[in-house]
């Protein structure tokens, strides 16, 4: 690439290095790099910095000037119940992580490594986290499993079995797992697909029994992937809002996220404590992510692929029907049940047990309510605006970043890549609080707080890494020669980018755009800290309505959300398959 730059500036090699580098710096590609780096750095670092600042100041957003202090840290860590809070959080996130990884990897093994007839369910399972947002999953399960009226518990009681109270630690782990297992499943699929099955066959041919082979070869080979999946599930669980708030709080089981939320709901808000808790979660998440990356690197070294590489499915014999049963069960529990519950509740004016007699009350009035209630219609509009705006901004931004990091050898591109992935390590709750702090405190000419822009800023930051995930591989699929041919035909860099890269990238761009829209649309963990009256988005509205007890309307809104997200997710899948984009 730098060679190309040489061609554009026909300078003899004898000329001084300095003069050339000055001219190079003024080229559009370097200006683009600089702008992109500044924007990304602003988005990724400023909120975290502000939160750190708040945690270290005696006064934040106060009228009196403050001083630097560690007082908040000392207060928070020594407060009664802090140990319990840490324990609760780790117990909840740890248990969820292990459960998800065991089930997710188990399902992935069945799909990738055996002849279980379940490929159709596998495809659906992969889409679940996209089409059922966490908040809806939580709402649906708390309706299904509510101790008194939840239909599952009613059935259990009729069968004289002990009921399952969702408002407990086990309930929290269960509901969160239902949402996260598909993610673990996807990670497991990746791990098992990249494993050469002749490694297992060699063990069998060495006289090792199938069980022993599974234990000492398959599991051992997948160990780095398994551990890193556990860490990632842990981070995701410890940083999301809906389950701890909707299920944990009624169960009096407080974790970091719910504590942060309640500390900000108090008046006056305890900015210092929230800052400290935010930093704490951030540190935990970063440590986990670093560890996971290391494990990932270790496992990358371990995969040897030769010419004879195959991922041969293993014949389970009659056991494959048990595998199919596992899939059916998973599909029924994780996908069908919550959605059925939402649909059922959405069609009744007030909540009723599923029964034949209740069929007489079926009505579409809840859906009419969405259109009629001004707040609801407004929230749908807000969600659409913020999601599409974030999608557009992220797509354009990551297209440039991906070009710079994948296609050029400009110095500093590594830093840019690093900055763009920082938001992965920042829990959405922390991001929400950070963005909130910055726009409350920053001496900016325009006040974003109270407008939709602040939500867009947060969504853009959170979804940056997702955009990169689609565009970086898409970009590396385009051969360098294509751009070189354009330049050799006399096109400037901008022309080459616009006329060659953008058209070829279109599928990736579209997939990245839709995916970002989906992620923004279902996002609540950051949005819950950033909305004001008039700027509620749908996910926040669902939470509000649920807290007020208007379950039927929540359900109707949920159904609309699921339909909308299904269409988008289907489009992403279609595009990815059609054009062979590898994501992840």
């Amino acid at each position, binding site marked *: 690439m730098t060679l190309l730059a040489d061609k554009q500036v026909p300078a003899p090699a004898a000329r001084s290095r300095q003069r050339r580098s000055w001219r190079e710096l003024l080229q559009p590609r370097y200006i683009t790099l600089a702008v992109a780096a500044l924007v990304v750095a602003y988005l990724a670092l400023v909120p975290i910095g502000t939160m750190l600042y708040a945690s270290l100041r005696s006064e934040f957003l106060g009228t009196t000037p403050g001083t630097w202090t560690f007082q908040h840290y000392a207060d928070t860590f020594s407060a009664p119940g802090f140990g319990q809070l840490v324990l609760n959080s780790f117990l909840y996130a740890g248990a969820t992580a292990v459960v998800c990884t065991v089930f997710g990897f188990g399902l992935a093994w069945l799909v990738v490594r055996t002849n279980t007839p379940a490929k159709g369910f596998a495809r659906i399972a992969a889409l679940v986290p996209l089409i059922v947002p966490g908040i809806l999953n939580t709402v649906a399960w708390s309706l299904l499993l509510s101790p008194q009226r939840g239909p599952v518990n009613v059935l259990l009681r009729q069968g004289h079995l002990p009921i399952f109270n969702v408002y407990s630690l086990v309930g929290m782990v269960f509901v969160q797992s239902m949402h996260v297992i598909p993610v673990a499943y996807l990670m497991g699929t990746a791990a098992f697909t990249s494993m*050469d099955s*002749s*490694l297992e*066959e*060699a*063990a*069998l*041919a*060495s*006289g*090792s*029994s*199938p069980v*022993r*082979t599974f234990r000492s*070869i398959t599991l*051992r*080979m997948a160990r780095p992937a398994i551990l890193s999946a556990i860490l990632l599930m842990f981070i995701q669980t410890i940083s999301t809002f809906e389950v701890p708030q909707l299920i944990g709080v009624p169960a009096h089981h407080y974790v970091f996220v719910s504590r942060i939320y309640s500390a900000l709901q108090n008046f006056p808000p305890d900015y210092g404590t929230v800052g400290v808790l935010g930093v704490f979660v951030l540190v935990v998440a970063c440590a986990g992510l670093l560890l996971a990356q290391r494990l990932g690197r270790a496992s990358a*070294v*371990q*995969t*040897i*692929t*030769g*010419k*004879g*590489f195959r991922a*041969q499915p293993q*014949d389970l014999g009659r056991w494959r029907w048990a595998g199919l049963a596992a899939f059916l069960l998973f599909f029924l529990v994780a996908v069908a049940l919550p959605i059925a519950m939402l649909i059922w509740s959405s069609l009744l004016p007030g909540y009723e047990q599923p029964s034949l007699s209740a069929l007489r009350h079926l009505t579409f009035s809840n859906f009419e309510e969405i259109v009629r209630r001004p707040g609801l219609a407004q929230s749908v509009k807000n969600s659409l605006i913020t999601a599409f705006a974030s999608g557009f901004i992220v797509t354009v931004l990551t297209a440039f970043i991906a070009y710079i990091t994948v296609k050029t050898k400009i110095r500093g591109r590594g830093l840019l890549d690093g900055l763009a992935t920082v938001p992965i390590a920042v829990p959405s709750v922390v991001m929400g609080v950070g963005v909130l702090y910055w726009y409350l405190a920053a001496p900016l000419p325009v006040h974003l707080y109270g407008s939709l822009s602040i939500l867009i800023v947060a969504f853009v930051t959170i979804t940056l890494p997702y955009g990169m995930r689609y565009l970086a591989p898409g970009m590396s699929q385009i051969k360098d020669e294509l751009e070189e041919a354009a330049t050799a035909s006399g096109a400037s860099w901008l022309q080459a980018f616009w006329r060659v890269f953008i058209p070829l990238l279109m599928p990736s761009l579209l997939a990245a755009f839709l995916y970002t829209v989906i992620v923004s649309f279902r996002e609540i963990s950051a949005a819950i800290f950033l909305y004001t009256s008039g700027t509620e988005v749908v996910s926040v509205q669902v939470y509000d309505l649920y807290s007020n007890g208007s379950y039927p309307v929540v359900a109707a809104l949920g159904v609309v959300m699921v339909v909308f997200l299904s269409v988008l997710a289907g489009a992403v899948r279609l595009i990815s398959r059609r054009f062979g984009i590898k994501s992840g």
Partner: protein
Amino acid sequence: MIKLTGLTKRYPGRSVTANAVDGIDLEIPEGKLVTLLGPSGCGKTTTLRLIAGLERADRGVIEIGGQVVSDPEHRIFVGTHRRPIGIVFQSYAIWPHMTVIDNVMFPLRVNRPRPKKSAARETAMQALDLVGLADFAERPAPAQSGGQQQRVALARALVREPKVLLLDEPLSNLDKGLRGRMRDEIRAVQQRLGITTVFVTHDQDEALAVSDEVVVMNGGHVIEQGLPQAIYTYPQDMFTARFLGVSNSLDGVVDSVGPDGATVTLGSRSMVCRQSGTAQPGERVSVFMRPESFRLSRRQHSEDAWPGTIEFSIYHGDCWDYHVRLDDDLLKVRVYQEKVGLAHGDSIFLEPDPDSAIVISGDKQEAEQTPEEASPADAVARTR
């Protein structure tokens, strides 16, 4: 030692009419190295995997050392881990999370009765010694080069002293120079141990170099089977002939059969073929000739020489390849001692060698030419 009877394996999944392995009968004698040779998709690897028990046959019996290990009709299937085999995969399949010695010791550690660790280690060291890797025992396995991994895989396959050694294209991932060395080494080890070995390859040179016996496969069938030199010199089948690089074929009719062989009329030409097999006068046959089995000269030395013109020439350094036009036919001729190259349009005379011409009956040709068996070699031959 290994006996396959009516072995059949369908393609997995969809109902494809063709079988991956279609009723193979094969006997592999004790202590011999037998090569399964054929183009990709001919069923050779599937056959090996069936012997190993990594795939289940749909029909037919597999016996190893007199014991039936697979017989679907009688619901007999001995799992891979209970068969007396050692296997080397194309990708070596060295476990990357273990050291070299741990890899080699693994078969012993899962064996029953389990030997003591020190004893197992000693046996493993002997196996490593056999392949010349004793000094590398403590290294992590992925740190080894391709050739070394190959040797580790071989040591691992042999350490249990299996009755049968199975090699699945073991040399195809190695670069050219190393391939020859490893090939010789595998043969040396096999002969020293006298272990019954099945060697799968698509490379004819490899097959000819290492085998006691070559089994040529295509379309899930055994085409023919015999000593390497017999298969190479006088293939009995068109497919074998083409697969082994006999690129010239001329169709004709047997004129007469005498003590010197058969005289075959090939259009306006005729030639004597010493190795005519069971050819009868009046029979339609194809005569196959290797590129190097012609004498090419500018002048007519004998009555048997055919006049032709050079179509084009390719220089290889140690030899020339000429494409010679004889009326409608185009023959490939390889000449070793030619100092001066001939050019397009030069008139020459070709004298076929009666000893190396191969006569294959035309009836057999029809029988073998079913569409699904058309290999690239066939396609090339047919365009002529």
